């Protein structure tokens, strides 16, 4: 017990300057085992330490304290403590021990799920993500945890706020897979299909040596979303996709590929019977809702195609060409699409005619110019980043040894500036 009091004094004394904290970190590392062995007595110690000022010490104690299994009742008391720590802790200090912080946060997530109120975890977890990441481009292990909480609590909008950051730095590939998969689902929930496609695409085409379940599930959703958004799906993966994905993904998603083929025939009745016969498969994958959206999107795409060919068309004709039951139904569809900005048209209810208009966007407004300007800026930043990365790569010793080794197999005559590793 004496050593514990000693430790508390050290924590309280050494939380001031940067050097002190570094020193404290070493002490804490040494004391970590002792802390774990005495985890049951730590709740009293916790009260003597301030989460905001003595964050590092608090983190070590808290980690040791929560390391054991917990019951539901315990979880109820723990959640507020953890949430308070996450909200008040000092970002500089906890970043010294990211592993500890991540495991504390993961436990926090587990507890929140244990007491079945994921919503309570959303906001602290978001704070945790922000505190842990060094830049907005940094993908932490906490990202997927946060998105999972968002998904479970259906608070998609908060999830989107994190998804809008462009991430580049990755700690673990698994983080990225999960982040993109959950992110894709959140975007689907918000009907942001473009963004969802982008995220799912990242999962499917990510480099991998063996196929993984996340990629398979993501590919299924990718097929469905692609049908909803574009009305078509090409089964060929881009060249940069890993060979594992190229070879195996399709075999795992056969019903979905067939769905896409049926879709491309453009016959709504065929699609519906196909969905009916394979209902169970889609339901097992929890994709039935999306599949239903696919079916209804076919009407949309068919109507959209009509806008390319017709200036005016009666609701009756629309209903018969896109195989809708009645002109009334056609009217509802057209109305919905006009509201969503998917087509430009006016309905004349007197004679039941729909008049399709051209896209009224003239690309003359200030907003449009600003939008274009911001796009240009974005792309400039991106290309700068690309250049920087290229440069970084070109003097990476590992890369150079590899290139040098391969270069040697060719003639000595095709000399170029890449340094070669000559055998001695």
């Amino acid at each position: 017990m004496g050593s514990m009091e000693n430790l508390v004094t050290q924590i309280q004394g050494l939380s001031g300057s940067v050097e002190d904290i570094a020193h404290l970190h070493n002490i804490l590392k040494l004391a970590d085992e002792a802390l774990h062995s005495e985890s049951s007595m730590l709740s009293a110690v916790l009260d003597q330490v301030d989460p905001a000022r003595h964050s590092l010490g608090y983190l070590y104690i808290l980690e040791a304290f929560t390391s054991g299994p917990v019951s539901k009742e315990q979880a109820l008391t723990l959640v507020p403590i953890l949430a308070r720590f996450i909200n008040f802790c000092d970002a500089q200090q906890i970043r010294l021990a990211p592993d500890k912080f991540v495991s504390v946060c993961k436990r926090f997530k587990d507890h929140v799920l244990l007491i079945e109120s994921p919503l309570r975890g959303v906001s602290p977890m978001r704070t945790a993500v922000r505190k842990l990441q060094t830049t907005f481009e940094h993908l932490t292990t906490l990202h997927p945890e946060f998105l999972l909480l968002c998904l479970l609590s259906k608070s998609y909008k908060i999830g989107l706020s994190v998804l809008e950051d462009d991430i580049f730095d990755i700690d673990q590939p698994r983080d990225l897979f999960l982040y993109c998969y959950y992110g894709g689902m959140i975007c689907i929930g918000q009907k942001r299909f473009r963004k969802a496609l982008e995220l799912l695409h990242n999962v499917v085409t990510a480099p991998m040596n063996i196929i993984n379940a996340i990629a398979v599930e993501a590919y299924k959703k990718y097929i469905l979303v692609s049908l909803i958004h574009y009305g078509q799906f090409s089964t060929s993966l881009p060249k940069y996709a890993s060979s594992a994905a190229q070879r195996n993904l399709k075999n795992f998603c056969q019903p979905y590929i067939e769905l896409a083929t049926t879709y491309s025939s453009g016959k709504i009745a065929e699609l519906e019977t196909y969905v009916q016969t394979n209902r169970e498969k889609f339901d097992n994958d929890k994709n039935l809702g999306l599949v239903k959206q696919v079916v209804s999107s076919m009407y949309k795409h068919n109507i959209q195609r009509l806008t390319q060919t017709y200036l005016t068309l009666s609701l009756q004709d629309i209903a018969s060409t896109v195989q809708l039951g009645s002109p009334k139904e056609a009217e509802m569809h057209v109305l919905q699409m006009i509201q969503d900005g998917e087509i430009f048209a006016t309905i004349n209810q007197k004679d039941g005619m729909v008049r399709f208009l051209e896209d009224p966007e003239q690309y003359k407004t200030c907003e449009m110019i600003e939008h274009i300007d911001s796009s240009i800026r974005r792309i400039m930043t991106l290309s700068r980043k690309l250049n920087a990365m290229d440069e970084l790569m070109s003097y990476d010793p590992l890369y150079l040894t590899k290139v040098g080794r391969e270069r040697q197999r060719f003639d000595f005559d095709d000399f170029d500036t890449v340094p070669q590793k000559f055998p001695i």
Partner: protein
Amino acid sequence: MEPEDEIYENGGEQPARSKPIISGEQLDVEAYASLYKDRTKVARLLFIADHCNNEAMQLEALRMAYDEIKRGENTLLFREVVEKIGGRLGDKYGMDSAWCETVDRRAEQKKERLESELNSYRTNLIKESIRMGYNDFGDFHYAHGALGDAFKSYVRTRDYCTTSKHIISMCMNAILVSIEMGQFTHVTSYVSKAEQTPEALDQITIAKLRCAAGLAHLETKKYKLAARKFLETGPELGSHYNEVIAPQDVATYGGLCALASFDRTELKNKVIDNVNFRNFLELVPEVRELINDFYSSHYASCLEYLGNLKPNLLLDIHLHDHVETLYDQIRHKALIQYTHPFVSVDLHMMANAFKTSVAGLEKELEALITDNQIQARIDSHNKILYARHADQRNATFQRVLQTGGEFDQDVRSMLLRANLIKYDHNLRALRKL
């Protein structure tokens, strides 16, 4: 007639054109068959017999085929035809076993004689005689319907050809057999072989080669090339090649392929103003008329001619497979050409010009617009077709933004992948340490 009316009545009823359109109600089998000789005559007659639903015509064709075969030596084909007739033409056209036997016996003897002759030539190594021997063998097999053997024998003469004349005759024989076998890749290769001979060819041979090449292209659905070849065919062809093709066919095949694949200027320069081809067209006035109608935009009468020709063309041994495709293409071309100069077109007027219903026309136009062959949109309410002029500026903006967005996304996912790969690499490097 007021000039304005002329536009409206475009292709519609024209009092000046009171000349009745010749309807090809019934194919005159006898007249048709007289255009050809030898095996193609038999083949064509049998084709007609197999494909027409008119019994009288079928029997007529079979009867003529029977007579023609009797003149030759092909007993296999003879038996087939007799079976097809099935006694429907009376005893005169029944099985003639005696004839078959004598022919077969004679064939057997001839074959032995040819073999011994060829062997003696081969031992003596007289090139010219060996060539002649193989050639005779080819003729013999051809006459008896063994096309594969005939082709082999003819091709074998190649090693013994000494002059380009020989080469050409070898090529012509090979082409003849290949056409009948339906091996049109051989036809193309032997045509080019014949054309490569150093000596100048005589006009008739050139014309024959053009026809053969045209047929080969037609069969492989390269209608534009087929049209070019038929159009290049010289008038010297006459009836010299009627063991394969009649000049009437050259006009029909060439004309239809040209209509389906040429644009307006090409049609004018290469077909209508083509003096050589005009001679051919004179033989088939319907085709000449319909080409002129098409060019002068009298679509209704053009399509009517086409409609009348159709049943007969379907009975043509070479064209029947392609009639539907060619007709579709011609019709599409007509529709596109009709709409091209206008900013707006009244669908009633257009339907009238094409002798079809407005609803049907709408469907056809819809398909063409979806295919991006016509840049226009249909006002289904007022039944007017409006030409659509793409706004270059807006389209450019749209494209730029879209490309930018795609680039943005691509680069980002590329950087991500690069980082992942780097991670994997680092992991492996760490493991090595």
